[in-house]
Structures are given as C-alpha cells and as structure tokens.
C-alpha cells in the first residue's frame, strides 16, 4: 500500500536533486515520472490525511476513482510527452518535476486552499515553460492573468471560508447543501473565474493565444494535455462535488461554456496556422467540457477530456515539431508535410478524427455519450450548439488534413512537386509516441467497453445517475 503523497513528494525530491545533479536533469525527470507511473498502480483508494490533523481541520488527499483515473491519465501523458520530446527537456527538468508535483497535488488534494497552493506551483512552472519560446511578452501576459485568476480564486475562497469556516472540500460540500445558493453567487463565480483563466474559458483566456501559439513540441503538448486535462479535472471536482451552483448561475455558466465552444471553433476556422487552429480548438473543447460538468454530466465530460487531451497531445507534438524544424506552422507553407512522415501524419489524422468524433475512433464514443446525456436532461439547445461546433471543427480539421496530406494547386492533380520544400524529420521517439497515443484512440473507439468499465465507477462517484450508451458486445441498447 502506497501513500499517494509520494506522487507529490518524489517529483519534488527529484527536483531538488536535479539542481545538484545538473547534467542529469532530463534523466531524473524521466525517472520521476516513471516512478510515479509505477506508484499509481500500487495505490489504494481512500482518504489520506497529511500532517496528523483530521479534516476538516487538516489537509487531506482524496484518492477516489475520479482522482485515480485522472492521475493515471495525466501522469501517463506526462511521461509519454517527455519521452517523445526528450531532446527538448534539457534545462527544464527541474521545472517539469515541480510541475508534475503540482499537477498531482491539484488532482489529489481534498482541500480548497491546498488546491490554491498547488495551482500556484503549477502556474509558476507554466510561466517558466511558456518563456521557452522566448516570446516574453506572452509569458508576461500569462503571468499577469494567471496571477489575477489565482487572486480571484483566493478571494472567493476567503468568502467561502468566512461563511463556512472550513476549506475542506467534503466539508464545504456538505454545508453547501443547506446553504442559500444565491448568497453563494459571488464566491462561486470568483472561483469559477479563477479556474476559468487556467481552463481557458472565454472571455478569461487572453493569454492562451500567445502561449499555446508559440509552444514547442514539448511545451505545447504538455500544456494542451497534461495541464489542460488537470485544470478541467479540477474544475469538475470543484464544481460538481464541492460547490453547488444556483440555477441562475448554472445557466449563465453553461451559456458561457457554449459560447466558448462556438467562439473557439469559429476562431479556429478563421486561422491558418496549425498551432493556432489547435489552440482555439482546445478553447472550444474546454468550453464544451465546462458546459458538460455544469450540466452535471460527469461521465461524458470525463470521456471528452480524455478525447481532447489524447488528441491534443498527438497534434501539438507534431504541430510543434513542424514549427521547431521549419520555423513556421502556416498550413499553406507546410502543405504536403505528411507525405514524408506518413506514420506521424496518420496519428495526427486519427487524433483529429477522434476529436471531431468520427466513428471508429474514440471521440465518437464520447460524442454519443455526451449527446445522450444532454438529451436525457431534456436540454435540446445545447446539442445543437455542440453539433454546430462539431461541424465547424470537422471543416477546419479536414481542411488542414487535406492540405497537409495532399499538396496541390486548385485545378491540378495533387502531386509531390507541390509539397513543402521544408524537410521535417520526426524522430523515432516522437513517432512511436504519437502512434501509441493514436492507437489508444482507435482501440478505445472500436472496443469502447474497455473504457466504459474503467470509467463508470468514477462517473458514478461524482454523479449518481450518468447515462451511458452501452457499447457492449451484447449489443444491448
């Protein structure tokens, strides 16, 4: 039996070590994340008290199904991404180890203030990582907004504390049930804004464009999958399990999520740079997930997070790699880039298809489930928005894919001569990584029963009745 605190402690320890062992930073990082992965399988579900005080007074870590599954995915992706972009780690090993600790802490903690601490730790590492691109203005923007977001979160927290006298999640959740939700409007909303800045919800996400848009093949996938996934998981925990949202605020926030979805997709449609397309798509997906969480649909939301972060990890890795090699990620200049990198291209395509929600890929499973969920709530407008978003998403991804696969001028047959003159050499590690990730998307798409069996319990933990489409061999419907 392992204590989950190790997941936080080991990376931190290794981070200190890495300062001493300067030349082995990246190896230590890999070691840290690998050890974490092994540890995760030894974990046992339950509540862990840190420091001896019992909650609500002490700090505790909660390892339920939800936390377990999210930690598994985030750590796994973290490891895979680091393996893929091993060459880019270089001096960032320490920062990455710290960030791993922060991420795990956010996912595990059972205390709202503790969450704030980890949020800050993670944010600081994110600021540092974002400055790798040497576009310091964007990092500065991020810093300002991130700090503002944390500040608002803290502000909301203070109000909560003054009302309930506790910061323990379980405790607050219990007390919320009897509280007047309209009075809780302001703290809830402040916490929402604080998390929304990190979770990229419109209109609180001005920093995303600069940071994601210039991220390299290491930072990009990390931000888009590990960080984004964590933020969304945390959002889900806070807003589904901890805070109760009044119906007025709920509708407003769902609308904000829906608007984010549409606006993000529309913005992606108008873009031509690969990473910009991906980042706006991420924004849209965040909006969708937020809307789902707020509607109380945890299971579909979790499915959708997985879909998003797996796909984005693949796509940002390849998009970032293209930009690293060629200095540009304009789709027009890179047309035909997949001609020489068929496996990477295939993975990118699979990821895009999964994100769009085309059948045979994992995304379809999550799409069906979320639609089913929303319809079961008798909500008939949100599916329209989501499907509209899907159409737009499909259009720009197909446009991008067509361009990257088949170079050519209008009116002429697609031939190799139109292909980009840049040479992009994607390393074996990256190829194996993206193929691995996209293989997961395909297998989970063809045999979604696997995913479902692992996920239903965590879904039921946060939300008692989450409908799911039974993708079983029995064909029961």
């Amino acid at each position: 039996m392992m204590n989950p605190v190790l997941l936080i402690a080991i990376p931190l320890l290794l981070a200190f070590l890495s300062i001493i062992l300067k030349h082995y930073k990246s190896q230590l990082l890999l070691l840290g994340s690998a050890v974490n992965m092994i540890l995760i399988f030894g974990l046992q579900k339950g509540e862990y008290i840190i420091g001896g005080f019992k909650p609500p007074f002490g700090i505790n870590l909660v390892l339920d199904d939800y936390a377990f599954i999210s930690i598994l995915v985030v750590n796994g992706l973290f490891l895979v991404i680091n393996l893929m972009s091993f060459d880019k780690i270089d001096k960032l090993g320490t920062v990455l180890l710290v960030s791993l600790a922060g991420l795990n802490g956010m996912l595990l903690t059972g205390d709202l203030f503790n969450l704030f601490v980890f949020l800050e730790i993670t944010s600081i590492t994110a600021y540092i990582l974002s400055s790798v691109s040497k576009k310091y203005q964007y990092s500065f923007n991020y810093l300002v907004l991130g700090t503002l977001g944390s500040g608002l979160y803290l502000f909301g927290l203070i109000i909560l504390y003054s009302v309930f006298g506790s910061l323990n999640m379980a405790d607050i959740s219990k007390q919320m049930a009897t509280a007047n939700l309209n009075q809780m409007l302001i703290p809830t909303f402040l916490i929402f804004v604080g998390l929304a800045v990190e979770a990229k919800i419109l209109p609180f996400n001005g920093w995303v464009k600069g940071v994601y848009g210039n991220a390299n093949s290491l930072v990009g996938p990390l931000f888009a999958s590990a960080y984004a996934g964590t933020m969304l998981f945390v959002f889900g925990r806070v807003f589904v399990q901890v805070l109760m949202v009044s119906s007025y605020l709920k509708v407003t926030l769902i609308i904000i999520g829906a608007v984010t979805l549409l606006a993000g997709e529309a913005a992606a449609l108008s873009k031509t740079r690969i990473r910009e397309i991906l980042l706006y798509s991420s924004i849209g997906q965040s909006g969708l997930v937020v809307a789902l969480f707020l509607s109380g649909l945890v299971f579909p939301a979790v499915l959708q997070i997985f879909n998003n972060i797996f796909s984005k990890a693949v796509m940002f890795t390849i998009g970032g790699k293209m930009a690293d090699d060629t200095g540009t990620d304009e789709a027009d200049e890179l047309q035909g880039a997949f001609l020489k990198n068929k496996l990477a291209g295939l993975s990118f395509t699979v990821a895009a298809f999964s994100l769009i929600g085309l059948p045979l890929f994992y995304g379809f499973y999550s799409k069906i489930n979320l639609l089913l969920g929303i319809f079961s709530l008798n909500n008939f407008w949100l599916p329209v928005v989501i499907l509209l978003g899907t159409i737009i998403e499909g259009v720009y991804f197909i446009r991008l894919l067509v361009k990257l696969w088949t170079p050519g001028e209008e009116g002429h047959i697609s031939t190799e001569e139109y292909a980009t003159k840049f040479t992009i050499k994607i390393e074996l590690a990256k190829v194996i990584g993206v193929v691995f990730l996209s293989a997961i998307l395909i297998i989970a798409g063809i045999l979604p029963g696997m995913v479902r069996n692992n996920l239903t319990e965590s879904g039921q933990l946060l939300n008692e009745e989450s409908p799911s489409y039974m993708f079983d061999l029995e064909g029961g419907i």
Partner: protein
Amino acid sequence: MSFDLLILMMFAGAFLAYLISKSNSEAGGISTVVISLISLVLLLLGKSQVGNEFAILYMTFKVTTIGWYFSAVMILVYSMTSFFNSYWMKQMLYPNAYNFLYLFSLAGTVGLFFAADLVTLFIFWEMVVWSSTFIVPLGKSRRAAVVYYTISSIGSMATLYAIMLLHAKSGTFIISEAFAWLATDPTMATIVFFIFILAGLTKIGIFPFHIWLPLAHGSAPHTFSPVLSGGLVKMGAFIAYMSVGVLPAYQAFSGSLKIMGMPIQIYLLMVLGAISIVLGTLMAIKQDDAKKLIAYSSVANGGYILIGILMMDQLSCAGSLMHLFNHAIASAAAFLTIAVVAHRTGTTKISELGGMIHRMPVTFTVYLISIISLAGIPPMGGFVSKWLIIQGLADKGLLFMALAAFFGSIGSFLYVFRPLAAVFLGQLAPKNYELEGATLMMKIPMVILSALIIFFGVFPRYILEVIGEIQSSIGITPIQLEGNAIQAINGLLNSYHVFVIFGFGFLISLAIFMLLQKSRKVGLMDTFTSAEFIHTPELYHYSHDFYAPFERLYKNHPSVENFLVNIANKFDELGQMVNALFFSHKPSITVFWITVVTAIIYLGGARI
C-alpha cells in the same frame, strides 16, 4: 456466406488491398477488382438471407430487401469502376491509401444498408463520409474535399441530432421500433422527418446542398467520380427512403395540411426536388467540363429520385427505386468514358476535345448508350423509370413536379448531347491522330454496364420484381407486372415490345439504306465550308458555348452557392471577431472582460 462475414470480409479486403498496394500499386488496383467482384457475387447469391439478423461488436444488422437492393447497386458500381483503378495508380499520390479507402467506403455502405439500429446506421454513414472525403483531394481540387465534407457533415450532424432526439423520446435506437413510435406523434414526426432526411438531401445533392456535387464529382480522381455519382449519392436516396417508407410519414402526416393531395411536409421536400431538377438541368447545360456536366445531371436525377421516393406509391416509388439503379449504372458508365478520354488526352474540358469517336469507337458507343439511358429515351433503362415516375405524378396530378420533370427530361437531351457532339463527334484535332482507345481492362466494365443498361431497359421486370418485394415489405401496393409489361393505373408499358418494334423499324431503315447506291467515303474536313478552304480541324469544330442563345437567357441567375459561401464567411468573421475581441497582446483586455462578466453576474444575481 452470411452477411456479417461478408461485411467483415470487405473490411479485411480493404486492409488486404492496402498491403498488396504497398508492394505493387497496380496489383493493389487489381485486388480492388477481385475483392469487389467477389463481394458482388456473394451478395447476389445471398438474396435468400433477407430477414436474417446479426451483430458485429455493438452494431446490429438486419438483412432487408431494400438493403440488399441498395448494396447490389453500390457494389456493382464500385466493382465496375474498380477495373479502372490500376491505370490511375501512377498518378495518385497515395495509391495504397486510395485502394484502402476505396474498399473501406464500399464496406461502409454495405454496413449502412443493413443497419438495424440508428447508431449503426450513423456509424457506417460517417465512415463512408470520411473515407470518401480523403479520396477526393487526390484529384484536382482540395477545396472540393472540404466542401464535400462540410455539406455531408451538415447532413450527418442533423441526422445525429434526429437520432438522439428520437432516442430521447422513444427510448430506443432500433430503427423499426423508433420510427413506428413516431406514427403516434405528428409534431415529433415532422421534426424528426425534416432533420433526419437532411443527411439524405445533402448526399443526393438536393438544392440548396447541391454545390458539392459538381465540385467533388468534377475534381475527384477520374476513377472515383463514377463511384461518387453512381454510388455514394444513392446513400442519400436510402436515407430518404427510410424517412418516408420506414418512418411512416404518410400515416404520421395524415392530419396535416394538404397541398395538391400531398401532406405539406412532403410537398415542401418535393418542391426542393423539383428545384434540383430544374437547377441541375440548367447548370449542366452551361458546363464546359464534361465531369461537372455529368455531376449537375446527377443533381437533376437526384431530384427525380427524391420526388419519386417521397411519393411512396405504387408507380413513382417503384420508378424512383428503379431510377436510382438506372442512373447509377448510366452515370457510372458516362463517367468511365470520360475517364478514358481523360486518361488518353489529359483533359475533360469539352472545348478542348473533339472527334474522339475516330480514335475510341467503343468508348463512344458506351457513352451513347449511357446518355440515352440518362436522357430517358427507350429502349434503355432510364426510360422505364422516368416513365413510371411521370405516370405516377400524372396519377396524383402533381403539376409542378411534373413541370420540373418534363423540363429535366427534355433538358437532359441538351446536356447529354453536348459532350457527345463536342467530345466524341466533330473534328479530330491533328495532335490526337495517334491517340489510343480504351484498353481491354477498361472496355470490360464499360461493356458490362452498357449491356446492363440495355438489358434492364428491355426486361425491366427483373428489377421491378425486387422493387415489388420492397414495396410490399412497407405495405404499399407493389408494382403490377404481366410478363414484360408494366401495368400502371393510367397506362401500359411493354418495353420488350417497344424494343422489338424499334428493332423492326431499324431493320427496315437499314434495308433501305443498304439497297441504295454505296456512298463514297470522304474525310471529315471535306465538308461544306461555304466554299472556303479550311485546313485547321480544331478551328472547324463547334464546342464553345454550345447553347449560347439559351445560356444567355439565364446567365445572370442568382446562385445559392454565394449564399452558402457567405454563411461560411460569416463564421470565419465571427472567428476573427472573437480573436480581435478577446485575444490581444495586452492583458488589460482580459481584465476588462473579467470585470464585465463579473458585473453582469453580479447585477443579474442581485435581481434574484
């Protein structure tokens, strides 16, 4: 072989074709022929399996006559076209992916036609969409693929919405049960009917969703255009059939407002079909690209098919189901002939060609037979089906539909004749003197298709018997056959007799011709030139602006394409606006937005 194995085998075949193409792309092209032909034979032999149910993974299937019929059409078109594949492998950027996607989309369509539940239907539908989307850009246009996908996905997303809505209301995904439930709820039936059929409309290319057809058909690889036009478009007809036949539309709409005896919901869609006929015809007349021309003719024929299916009666529905077969093989054959021309000359522009008959007589004959069928002239198949549709319309007195049908029918003479006159007939340019004709591999499918066109034109009963079964399966009076004669309420057609009389007339005519003095053979340039000496065949060939006086009458027509492009641009502008409003280099903008939203929340919250 039971059909679950057939579907799995077809998917496996797709992978097999991929592997074979990896080592030798031409062998891969031939493997598509073999695999699709085997599938065709297995399917045709499996007619007795109608009624069987089976499942693959979580997907459930049921073999129905209509599914079997559609699958047969689809595999026929695919297998015939596949003969051409190996010739285009060299031009393709991804020959192995092409072969894979080619068979994959075929397998998808078969799965679609046998689907027993709506989710399975949707899964296969989308699979076909994405697999075919990636074949299109291998041709001449990348934009075509995007437009194709966009329009398709508008349809499929609408259908997904309808499926989910239906599930939320009726609690089941099983097609027969879910649709049967709708008969009791006219309002929901109307909503589901319109949303569900949208996928069909987009796929058939009904106005205003027709814009992808000329683009995709016109610029897809030459070997895929026949499949798009002859095959994949027919998926839409299947959806339309489901929305009217399986969904008991007439039963559900029995209480709604009637226009000319038709429920308004159905009449509205028929109007769209009529518009498609007129529009497809007019646009086809003015095209200069032979492939685009046939693509627009597919729009027009799609209108016929839709109107006929929407009628869901004894005559028109049978005519429509037969027409989709006739159109599938005729338009595939026409596209194949154009593919041969393109293969040899490298162009499909009508104005750049001419006199091909002297270099490729077989191709010409096939084109001739196929356009006779497309234009609905006896004794080819197209006539029988158009006759049935028009007789059905006359029976119901649907005047405006009939007007469109007549216009499309006569108009088709105009547009099918244009490539005939300007590509195959007329003067042969000197640069084409040494051109070769179709190879044997190309001739095989073309000859088979022409033979089928004639055979089913003379003996339509072999196909109408199957259609009769389909009609009885959904509870409408099946088409009445007496031997070779089709007995309609308001007319009789014995196409075998028509064929015999036509042959008799031809023999008399031939006798007159043979008895008279033999002709002297002269060259093409020895023609009446108002006594001027002309030495340049290219210039003495009428192919530009063939119907100029007629085209002038509608050259300033409004275009729905602009409207759709505008909508797309609006989304683009929305994106740019989002970008400009929320994503600047200054954090103060975001701070401003946070303030605004907070204020709104606060004010709104205060009111509660």
